[in-house]
């Protein structure tokens, strides 16, 4: 597919004729497969922009003839691109490995260079093998591109590595790609660079008490992580952040990996937030899907396209936990770092949510180092009821309130109240009243009246 696309794009986009020398499949099979990928090589043949040479049955004795044929066709077509599919199959026709190397180096290399033909040799990489093809291709070639695939979390992932690119400063990052109905789509690298542009303006999260705790709210372009157990109010905080943006006439893009747009709109209505109105007036855009079946790079690329098209100043990602489940730790770290650095430079204030286990700390969530602000929401059992606690674990470059505040999910959203004074060890996960208060309460809760059992006994 890659090599066919190389020829097809060359012919259709740059008018460069190409030759496909096949030692693996015949012309009919090739044309049929390419039609499925929307590449019409037959019309290119008619325009003398393409030539398919079938060498499927070539033996060692005929290699010289095959090479002569290729060179003749190059001259005849004035070809600028050549694909040999595959050199591994071609090399099998030689009884001695050295003969294959001579052909590759002296004949193919010199001849194609002289003819100014860019040649793409396909070499097979057996499963589990570290070397390419016959082991000599990578030393002779000017560039080596390695396409591999792996099964990750039940999903096939395709990788693209530029191992060698003589004379250029090509990226050494690992790319991923998908084979779509329009051929191979290579996703942009997730390389990140520290943001060189920062903002000093403050942005309101939309939860007044939380803004106060952050001495006015996070900086524009910051990434705010709201973490907590299920049911602690993460999505409500995210919706409130979005609604504050709409109230300020700012655009918000809300990407949900857990709930559908309809569910979020209904949830907002419960607080009196008319999300639909803001979707209609263009201040809110929501998108919702489960990330598991997709390639992380394609998710990122699609999100990137959405952001480029919609140009929001606020971005919500709900939740990172769902995204984390869909990829490896390394990929997850790269995508979050890339997102964080790009959004920071562009002044897009981002709020991401993450679900933690009971009593989860930022240290348990290993990407927390990338976050500018970390807000933890918790549930605390007290007097046979659940109370909610909020604490700011981190606020990079911001003076902030470090006390553990109680908050309520009121009919108008999250409302931050006073700090907890009657319970300690909330962060330790074993909330209890201070020992002195506990003992004091116990002492005066004992009635002086003799119990009925005591009277009888």
């Amino acid at each position, binding site marked *: 597919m890659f090599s066919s696309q190389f020829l097809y794009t060359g012919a259709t986009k740059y008018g460069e004729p190409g030759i496909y020398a096949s030692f693996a499949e015949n012309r009919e099979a090739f044309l049929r497969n390419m039609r499925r990928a929307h590449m019409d090589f037959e019309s290119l043949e008619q325009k003398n922009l393409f030539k398919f040479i079938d060498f499927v049955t070539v033996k060692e004795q005929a290699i010289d003839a095959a090479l002569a044929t290729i060179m003749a066709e190059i001259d005849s077509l004035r070809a600028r691109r050549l694909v040999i599919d595959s050199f591994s199959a071609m090399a099998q026709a030689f009884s001695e490995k050295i003969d294959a190397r001579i052909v590759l180096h002296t004949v193919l290399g010199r001849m194609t260079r002289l003819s100014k033909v860019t040649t793409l040799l396909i070499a097979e990489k057996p499963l589990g093998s570290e070397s390419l093809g016959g082991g000599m291709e990578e030393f002779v070639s000017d560039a080596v591109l390695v396409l591999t695939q792996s099964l990750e979390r039940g999903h096939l992932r395709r990788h693209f590595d530029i191992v060698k690119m003589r004379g250029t400063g090509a990226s050494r990052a690992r790319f991923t790609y998908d084979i779509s109905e329009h051929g191979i789509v290579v996703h942009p690298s997730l390389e990140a660079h520290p943001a060189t542009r920062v903002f000093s303006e403050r942005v309101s999260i939309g939860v007044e008490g939380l803004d106060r705790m952050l001495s006015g709210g996070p900086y524009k372009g910051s990434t705010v992580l709201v973490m907590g157990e299920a049911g602690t109010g993460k999505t409500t905080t995210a919706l409130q952040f979005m609604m504050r943006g709409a109230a300020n006439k700012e655009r918000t893009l809300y990407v949900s990996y857990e709930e559908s747009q309809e569910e979020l709109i209904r949830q907002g209505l419960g607080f009196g937030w008319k999300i639909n109105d803001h979707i209609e007036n263009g201040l809110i855009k929501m998108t919702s899907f489960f990330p598991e079946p997709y390639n992380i790079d394609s998710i990122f690329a699609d999100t990137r396209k959405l952001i480029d098209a919609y140009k929001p100043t606020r971005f919500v990602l709900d939740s990172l936990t769902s995204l984390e489940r869909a990829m490896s730790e390394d990929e997850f770290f790269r995508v979050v770092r890339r997102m964080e650095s790009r959004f920071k430079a562009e002044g897009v204030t981002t709020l991401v949510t993450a679900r933690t286990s009971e009593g989860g700390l930022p240290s348990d969530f290993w990407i927390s180092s990338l976050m500018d602000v970390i807000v933890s929401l918790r549930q605390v059992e007290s007097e046979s009821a659940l109370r909610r606690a909020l604490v700011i674990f981190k606020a990079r470059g911001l003076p902030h309130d470090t006390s553990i505040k109680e908050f309520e999910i009121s009919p108008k959203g999250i409302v931050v109240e006073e700090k907890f004074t*009657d319970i300690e060890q909330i962060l330790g996960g074993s909330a209890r*009243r201070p020992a002195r208060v506990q003992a004091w309460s*116990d002492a005066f809760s*004992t009635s002086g009246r003799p119990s009925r059992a005591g009277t009888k006994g």
Partner: protein
Amino acid sequence: MVGLMSLNLRKLGIAPLPIAAILTLAFAVFGIGEELIYQSVLLEVLLNIFLVLAVSIIVARVSVKSFLSTGSVNVLLLGTAVLAFGTMATLGGAVSSIDVNKGIAVYSFGALTAGGLHLSSAILTYRGSPKRTERLRLRAGACYIGTIAFLTTLSVLAIESILPAGFGEPGSMAQRAAAATSVSLFTVSAILFSRVYLRSHNPILYWYSLALWATAVGFLSFFATKGNGDPLLWTGIASICVGSVYFLVSILVVPNLRSGRKPPGPVT
């Protein structure tokens, strides 16, 4: 703190009470030391602020935290009573520096307030206190601020000579009636808390009951006092100070309770 918990120390804690009672009896009935008069407003003010008020704030703070976490009304009343006592001592001392008799009037009304609140708390504790679940902060704030506001108003009224003058004259009928009522209120409170202690054997209740007994003896001395600076007045002040120390001990025994007996359980 381990020492505080020892039985000997508990027994030792009772000792000042009969001593103060005997001294009160000796000074009041046999007229011993009638000629000994020592007046020091500064000493009274210092004792009131640095001991009585400080201790009352500590006890009131723990009580309000306890109320906020349990909603037990008796604990709130107890905290309010102790806060009233500390406020009374401070304001009474401050007013005394202007006019001793007006200061005594403030003491009289403050003692009645604190005694009434203590008795309410004691009755509820004895009978089993009701619990509140809503607006705990509001209730606690109203009780504490209301008490301070009430006693401050009384002090202003005393300074403006609006309160009946008899409450501030040592040995007068009004002052004796107020002192006798305070003695009764604190004594009944002490009896009730002692009975609760005898059932629970909780050291906090032991020291708290002793504090109330000491305060009751103190007001008994005030009841018998004949003039400013006499031995009965100082016996009363000393008993009140001992009572404050016992209030403080009742707070301090708690950490020992945690390590030595049962640990505080998780909040339920």
